[in-house]
Each structure stands twice: as structure tokens, then as C-alpha cells.
């Protein structure tokens, strides 16, 4: 089984350890993992800003880079949804249509892949403590990622899940929305921070780095420097005490 890891631009630039933790998880499934080095961005910023030509260009680039993979795994619900749901729409009636349909069928969000395809039972990580899980919108509503991360967390003996109120309400990130409508976005993330804090969990966990940066940014501005904000991969594969880069 040849699995291509699409790291995503945010992880590459801002939190590389999420990429390495995803890699560690995929290797734990016994798969042969490849990480195409020319990969960049899936085209979501252009797509959601109305620039379909930009999105098509980057989609074609990605298609070429992952040719030969049985699966493409993405540690982000919104980027995975871009490949799975939106790429085929961009090429309806085009000669590349079938290739993008196939790419879509091969693409999985990380936790979905670990649960539904690889059936990973033992997590390589040793994180211990209480966590609350934020359901990022694209993963939840476009890919139905809801039970998968919770199933994986349940397989880690040291973890207690404390659900927050409204785990399915948007954190206010929305890509460029967070910059274009900063005040509204910050209010939504503030609401999310309050709900997460009320859960009493030591860490806020999610599957999309964009949402996590948004939540962490608001949390720190509110003066909370203790609650950790972590990607699910960092929990499942990470070393609880290791804050450095691997």
C-alpha cells in the first residue's frame, strides 16, 4: 500500500511536527509512505476567494505529484475536502475529469484513513491528560469526520475526552475570512475558547491547523497560556513531554 502524504501548506510553514506525527502514524499502519517534495498548496485560498483558474492550476499540479499512490492522506479536513469534494467539481466535463474523480476517491483525511482504511489499533503516541475536540467545519460537514478522531482518542489509555458545548460550531477561521472580517472572526473564536475552557480540558484538539491557530491565537490573547492547542496527530503520535521539533 503506497500512501502519499499531502502535508498542507500551513503545516509545512507553521507546525512541521504535525507533518512528522502524521508520517509516524502512517508508518505505524505498515504503509509505504511517500512525501512528494514539490507539493505546495491545494488551491483552497483561490477557490474560496472566487479565483477558480488559480484553483485549477494547483489541482493539476497536485494530481501529477501524487500519481502512483494508492491513497492520498491529508492531516486537514478542509484540504482533504478540497481534493475529495471540490476538485471533481472544477473539472466537470473536462478531459481530466476521470483522473480527478479517481484522486477524490483515493483521498482521505488523516483520522478517517486511520480508522476506515488502515484500522490502526495501537497509537504510537503516549499523550496523557484530558482533551476536548473541536469538529472543524469542512471535515465535519463535507467529509463526515466526527466519530473517527474520537475512536482513535478512545484507543489511547491516558486520554480523557471532555466534550465542550457546541463542538460543531465554527471557530471563525474560514481562511481569508479571519483577516477580512477580523472582528467577527475573533468573536467566534472567543466563543469557542469559552466553550472549550468550560469543558475543563487541558488541551483543545482538532484536525485542522488553521482552526487551531485561530483558537490558540485568541486563547493566548485572552491571557490563557496554559491550555494546550494541539493537532490530533500530535496527540496520537506525539510524545507528551516533547515540545520541540522532531
Amino acid at each position, binding site marked *: 500500500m503506497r500512501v502519499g502524504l499531502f502535508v498542507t501548506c500551513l503545516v509545512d510553514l507553521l507546525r512541521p511536527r504535525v507533518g512528522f506525527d502524521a508520517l509516524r502514524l502512517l508508518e505505524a499502519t505498515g504503509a509505504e509512505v511517500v512525501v512528494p517534495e514539490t507539493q505546495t498548496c491545494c488551491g483552497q485560498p483561490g477557490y474560496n476567494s472566487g479565483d477558480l483558474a*488559480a484553483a485549477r492550476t494547483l489541482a493539476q499540479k497536485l494530481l501529477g505529484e501524487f500519481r502512483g499512490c494508492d491513497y492520498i492522506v491529508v492531516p486537514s479536513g478542509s484540504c482533504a475536502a478540497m481534493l475529495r469534494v471540490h476538485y471533481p467539481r472544477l473539472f466537470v466535463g473536462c478531459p481530466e475529469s476521470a483522473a480527478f474523480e479517481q484522486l477524490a476517491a483515493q483521498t482521505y483525511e488523516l483520522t478517517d484513513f486511520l480508522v476506515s482504511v488502515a484500522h490502526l489499533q495501537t497509537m504510537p503516541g503516549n499523550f496523557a491528560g484530558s482533551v476536548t475536540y473541536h469538529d472543524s467545519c469542512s471535515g465535519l460537514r463535507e467529509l463526515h469526520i466526527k466519530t473517527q478522531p474520537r475512536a482513535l482518542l478512545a484507543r489511547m489509555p491516558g486520554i480523557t475526552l471532555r466534550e465542550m458545548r457546541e463542538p460543531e460550531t465554527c471557530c471563525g477561521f474560514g481562511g481569508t475570512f479571519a483577516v477580512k472580517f477580523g472582528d467577527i472572526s475573533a*468573536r467566534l473564536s472567543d466563543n469557542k475558547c469559552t466553550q472549550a475552557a468550560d469543558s475543563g480540558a487541558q488541551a483543545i484538539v482538532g484536525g485542522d491547523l488553521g482552526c487551531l491557530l485561530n483558537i490558540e491565537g485568541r486563547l493566548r490573547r485572552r491571557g490563557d497560556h496554559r491550555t494546550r492547542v494541539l493537532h490530533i496527530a500530535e496527540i496520537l503520535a506525539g510524545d507528551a513531554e516533547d515540545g*520541540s521539533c522532531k
Partner: protein
Amino acid sequence: MQVNTLHFKRTAVANLANPQLQRALQRLQERFVGTRAAVMTEIPDFEALRSVAAAIRQHTLERLDHYLEQFEREVTASGGHVHWAEDAAAAQRLVVAIARRHGVRTVVKSKSMVTEECAINEALEAAGLEVTETDLGEYILQLAHEPPSHIVAPVVHKNKEEVADLFARHHQRPRQQGIAELCREAREVLRPKFLAADMGISGANFLIAESGSALIVTNEGNGRLATTLPRVHLAITGIEKVVPSLDEVSILLRLLPRSATGQSITNYVSVMTGPRRAGDLDGPEHFHVILVDNGRSRLLGSELEPMLRCIRCGACMNHCPVYQNIGGHAYGWVYPGPMGSVLTPIFVGLAEARDLPNASTLCGACAEVCPVKIPLPDLLRDLRVRQVARHLRPWPERVALRLWTWCATHPRLYAFLAAVGARVLKRLGGTRGLIHRLPFAHGWTAGRDFPAPAGRTFRELYRARKAK
């Protein structure tokens, strides 16, 4: 109604800082979101039912000409009149002409968003007629000279203290405290208006083609008084509201009140067919329907056509995290929330409403609850595409996107820039790893820190690891 869509951001920011409004929005969410979820459990298979509902609406749109002509024939056969309004101005002229033809001096209205869309009250008042809104919420807004902030609960932004002040001032009576007392007072003031009115104006939630009927769902009973007591009944609604028969209505009615207010059924469901017939105990002498296009037919066959399936339940705004925090007035016109962010650019112009399609995180909560499965995020995205095609986006945004895409298609340059960026951001983050101010991203850092990265990109570290 005045168009204030260009002030979206300013109004939104003011509303975020308005504690009274925030409490009102909190109550709306508790009331409508919670009760909707509870009442939907009465339906064995919500997904299946809304698929049927969406198919009914879609079928009607595909044969809209047929059903509208059938509707007109049936209205005429039952003694009524159908009028066609191409735009808001035409609707205004028709309303005034109908009022003049029947010697109307006073008008009572039941709630109708299409009359807001077409500024019917303003037209009637300019023609010297007295117009009274009789839906309690709309009546309060008429006294306050404010636009509605929600399509189902128009006065949701006001609390009972404000209403008490308003009533005391306008009714010249002692100030009442309780909601029941305020309702009684409104009833006492409005009752003579109903009895004296020459014409009643209503909207129509559905138009039934097979019988030429207009159907309205209400909770207060004012709709029935307004449509039966006056000599003339005029229903004004959009051309897309037609459905083939009562069979389809019965399916849509299982979803409309549940989605809107969390009720299994509204207190009143009124089906009005033609004027009073010989032997009828009540009903108007004259029955008119104005069918408003106002840009709707342009959507047929376009990417935005699914928007015409809308049955105006308001569930999308009740569940929208943006609406929940900024309220309806920020959207600047008649229709707020996700459905408004699609409709308003269509009605008032893509340039005039340029913020609206972008004022959404595309979280999809709206589409998830929509009873007729309108893919609202896709429609908002389509409007963004239209804005880009018409060069309506600000140039810094266009340049930034172009640059990003260009870099992303040149992997070596991209890798270099990302490596530089990671180092710069790390440095900006200082010892705590938090960036408090970012140039070009003030929108982010005004209310949030930006967590700084570790200083080296994944691809650098991965290459180093492989080289070992």
C-alpha cells in the same frame, strides 16, 4: 427599504459591542435552534423528507411558466385578478393603482418580506394612504421606524423594555410592564384598524396552482383578520412561491414551521381562494394577487437557481455563527443571514453588496439545516467567482492571491520563501512564540495573537531527515 449593504463591517462591529443585542441574539439561538432540533425528531427521516421537499421545489422551478399560468387561470376563474410586476417599481405602481380603483384610504398589512423588498409601505404612504402593520413584530418596527432584523422574527433585536417605551410614547397610555399586557394593548389599538380598513395586504408562503389559492402561515391571527375583514384583499409574493397542488404543500408544511420556529404546525394556516362567493359568511369582495419577479427569473437556469427553492424559514440565519453574533441589521437590507447574503447581491447588485458573499466562513451549518437543501456555501462561492470575474474585489486581495498561486506553482521558489517566512515569523514571535502584530494581517492580530512557527519548514526538516 433603504439599502445599507455597504456599511456591513461598520454595523457588524457596532453590533458585536451592543450588549442588549447580544442578549437578544442569545435568546433567539436558544429558542429557535433548540426547539427546531427537538421538533425535528418527530419526523422519522428528516433527510428523506427534505430531499422530497427539494425535489418538489426544483420540479416547480423547472416548469415555472406552466404553474404560474395555471395559477393565473385558476385565480381568474374564481373571480380574482393576477397582476405581474417585473420589478419593485412596477409592484408599487400596481398596489397604488389597485387601491385607487377600489377607493381605498386605509390599509392593514400582515407580515410580508416581499412588501419590504418592494418598499410597498413607502409607496402607499406617498400616495396618501394610511398603512398599519398588524403583525406584532412588524407593528413595533413601524412605530420605531426600523427595518426587520430577521425574516421570521423581525423584531428579535428589541427587548420588552424598549417595546414598553415605544408603546407608551405612541399610544399615549400608561407604560405597561409585562409581555401579556403589551400584547393586549397592541390588540386594543389594532382592532379598530382592522375593522376600519378598506384593504388588507398579505404575503403568500405558497401559491397553489391547481386552485389559484394563496396560502399563509401565521401565529397571531392578524393574517386572517387582515385578509377577511377589509373589502379588498391583495396578496403580494414572489413568482417562485408557486407549487402544483395541496399535496405538495402538505409536505412542505411539515418542514416550514419546524424549520422556522420549531413548531409542528403554526397556529393558523390560511388558504385563500378568490373573493367572497354568494352564501359565504365573510371574505373580501375583491381578491388580487401581485406576482413579483424583481430579478428572480434571471436566476432560472443559472448556478444560483437553487436559491429560488427557498421557503423563507430562516433556519439558515438561526444556525449561522456569523448571524448569531452580528444580528440581521448588519446585512443592510431586507434579507439577512446566509440566504440574504445570496439574495441581496442579486436584488441590489453585486457591487453594492460586495461584502455579503464574503461574510461567511463557509462553515456549512446553513446548508445542513435548510429544509429544501439549498447549497448555500456553494452559492456564496459562486457569487465570489462572479465578483472576481467583474473585478469587484479590492486590488491588494487580487494581487496577493495571484502572487500566492504563482509562488505555489514554482516549488523551488516556494520552498525558499517558506523557509525565509518561517524564520522571520519565528523571530517576530519572540521568546513566548506569539506574534502580537502582523503587517498585512491586522484583521487577525487586532483580536488575536498569531502563534509563531518553529523556524524551519517541514520540507527542510524532512530533507534533512532523509539525508541522514
